[in-house]
């Protein structure tokens, strides 16, 4: 089984590197030439909560994807930013084996975009929970999230139709070499629940310039993010999705924070304390990482997606619409980074 990782950054590089270390047939593809060159000459350096190792793994520049015509793809793990989905899928298509398929390991919900190019039969999704990784330099990736405990799946693979399939069972076994992996019958519910988790951190912390720990430690930021989760849950329920736990906390517990005259954040805040313990000090939303390096953020596919779906189904989601707009203002330098940019949104 030839597994090719497209976008060998934090998630793709870590997942691909760990599977290669476990003996899988892995090729990494990345558009950043220095990263590919570093992996080729010195191996891929993985470090963090699962120990240090240097992995020898095939790495291809984006301009050499055509080499795959002699070694077709059985599984394409798509780990690029959401806004790179359409073109990257178009690039991959020609080199898929006849039974090859594409798995989205991205944030947001990109399965539909992928299906437009390769067809629904050749798409699956994988929702990642608490992987927590970061690329620290060319050829170097750090996992800052603690590995999962028994019974909690970091990798949740699902077919669009919800059925359990042998191809995903096989892939789950391969991913098990990294951390707990399972096949879910509820891909869309998992996606939206993960989106709620992403959307609570991808705008608020980065706008304020706060790491995950700093965001959770600040009462105003923390409570704003809790309110954003409640909004995401309402939109998801409006879409008819069956939601899963978010940060280990059941949807109803999140919803119960609001509704009363004075919001009761107690039970959720208790749950978050548990969740926080596994986040290392280095933990930050990818949006913050992108803002710091002057890169385009994924905000349109995270908070922007919640706002867009809300509009589609006629549910109110003003927080996500505002958070998206403010993040973009920070991205292009119109608004300075800092807590002040969020002042109007606090309780």
């Amino acid at each position, binding site marked *: 089984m030839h597994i090719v990782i497209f976008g060998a950054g934090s998630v793709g590089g870590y997942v691909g590197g760990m599977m290669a270390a476990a003996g899988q047939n892995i090729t990494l593809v990345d558009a950043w030439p220095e990263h590919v060159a570093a992996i080729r000459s010195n191996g891929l350096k993985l470090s963090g909560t699962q120990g240090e190792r240097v992995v020898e793994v095939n790495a291809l520049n984006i301009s050499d994807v055509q080499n795959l015509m*002699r070694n077709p793809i059985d599984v394409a793990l798509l780990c690029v930013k959401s806004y790179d989905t359409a*073109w990257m899928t178009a690039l991959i298509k020609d080199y898929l084996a006849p039974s090859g398929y594409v798995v989205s390991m991205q944030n947001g919900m990109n399965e539909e975009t992928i299906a437009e190019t390769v067809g629904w039969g050749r798409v699956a999704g994988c929702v990642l929970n608490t992987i927590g990784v970061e690329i620290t330099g060319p050829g170097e990736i750090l996992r800052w999230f603690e590995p999962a405990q028994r019974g909690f799946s970091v990798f949740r693979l699902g077919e669009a139709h919800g059925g359990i399939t042998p191809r995903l069972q096989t892939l789950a076994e391969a991913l098990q070499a990294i951390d707990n992996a399972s096949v879910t019958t509820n891909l869309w519910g998992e996606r939206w629940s993960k989106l709620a988790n992403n959307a609570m951190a991808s705008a608020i912390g980065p706008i304020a310039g706060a790491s995950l720990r700093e965001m959770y430690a600040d009462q105003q930021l923390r409570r704003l993010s809790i309110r954003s989760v409640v909004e995401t849950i309402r939109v998801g329920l409006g879409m008819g999705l069956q939601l899963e736990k978010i940060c280990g906390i059941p949807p109803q517990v999140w919803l119960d924070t609001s509704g009363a005259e004075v919001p009761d954040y107690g039970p959720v805040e208790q749950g978050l304390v548990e969740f926080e313990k596994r986040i290392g000090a280095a933990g930050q939303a990818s949006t913050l990482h992108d803002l710091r390096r002057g890169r385009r953020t994924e905000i349109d596919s995270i908070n922007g997606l919640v706002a867009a779906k809300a509009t589609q189904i006629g549910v109110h989601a003003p927080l996500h619409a505002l958070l998206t707009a403010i993040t973009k203002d920070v991205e292009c330098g119109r608004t300075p980074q800092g807590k002040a940019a969020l002042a109007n949104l606090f309780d």
Partner: protein
Amino acid sequence: MRVAIFGSGSIGGYIGARLTLTGVDTLLVDAWQDHVLAMRKDGLRLTTAEGGDEIVAVDCAHISDLHRIGLGSIDLAILCVKSYETRWMTTLLRDYLAPSGAVLSMQNGMNEETIAEVVGNSRVLGCTLTRLGSELEEPGLIHRWMGPPDANYAVFRVGELHGMLSRRVETVVDLLSGVDKAIATRNLWGERWSKLSQNAMASGISPLTHQSINELFTSEVMLPVMVALVREAITVGQAVGYALEKICGIALDAWSDPRGLTNGSELFYGLAAWQQNMGPGGQASTLHDMRRGRRTEIEAINGLISRKAQEMGVEAPMHTLLCKRVRAQELRPAAEASYREEELAAELWAAAQ
């Protein structure tokens, strides 16, 4: 007006550098980092068969750095990537195209439809190139081995998909006139197919026999095969309803003249004239790719003729066979020729029976 070249190899790099020289704000985008770094460090060096040699300071970007150029900032995207890279590259550049911007295909084959699927019909222009033979010899160095026979020869023929003239076509013609003679055409599709017929003469044979273009045009074994290939292509093009133009500067009547290559025929003289001032160094891009283990454009050239033939219910057995053989060879690229010319010619004549 901001122009960006997507695929700054032999053709794109050459045109991008020449546009830069005429003062056009041009960005050269490429996926090959070594090439981008070389251009950034030392400029892009252009050499010609006539001994020309100059270095052009170009503005260039690797595709992973595109986000720096700003969304919606490109007025004219000139697409010079291989045909098989059309869809993903167009999808990638779409976000960077200005609302009134257009994509101009300067590729082999016929990719306008694919581009239109991504950016919409109204944002696509096509341009055929003839007598512009160049090669990316090493990162940062492009050699032009074939130029126009005279200053009146229109190297660039630019057209709208719907065949009417437009202001933007005139603008593009003006831009390209700084490189070589350019004209607006009302017959983009006919021009495309005629150019395709010409490309298909060498693009299938060369990567199998490793003959240069000049060797093919002077081979007594291969020249008749190439004439037969053009005749097949003409049959298919006419079945589709294209109004074909001259091929290799030779009128259609001369191609179908039963005297063929008999000494004294118009075709005989036409091909001899075409071969002259071609330069000995030129090779089909498919051979260039095969030698480097890269994917060739065979499916977009001979393969396209074969597919259109099937669609229209006419025969193109020689193109079909060449496409099949080259595709098989791509999977195990050879440093040496995999066919002797007599061997390949015999196989092609047998297929045509």
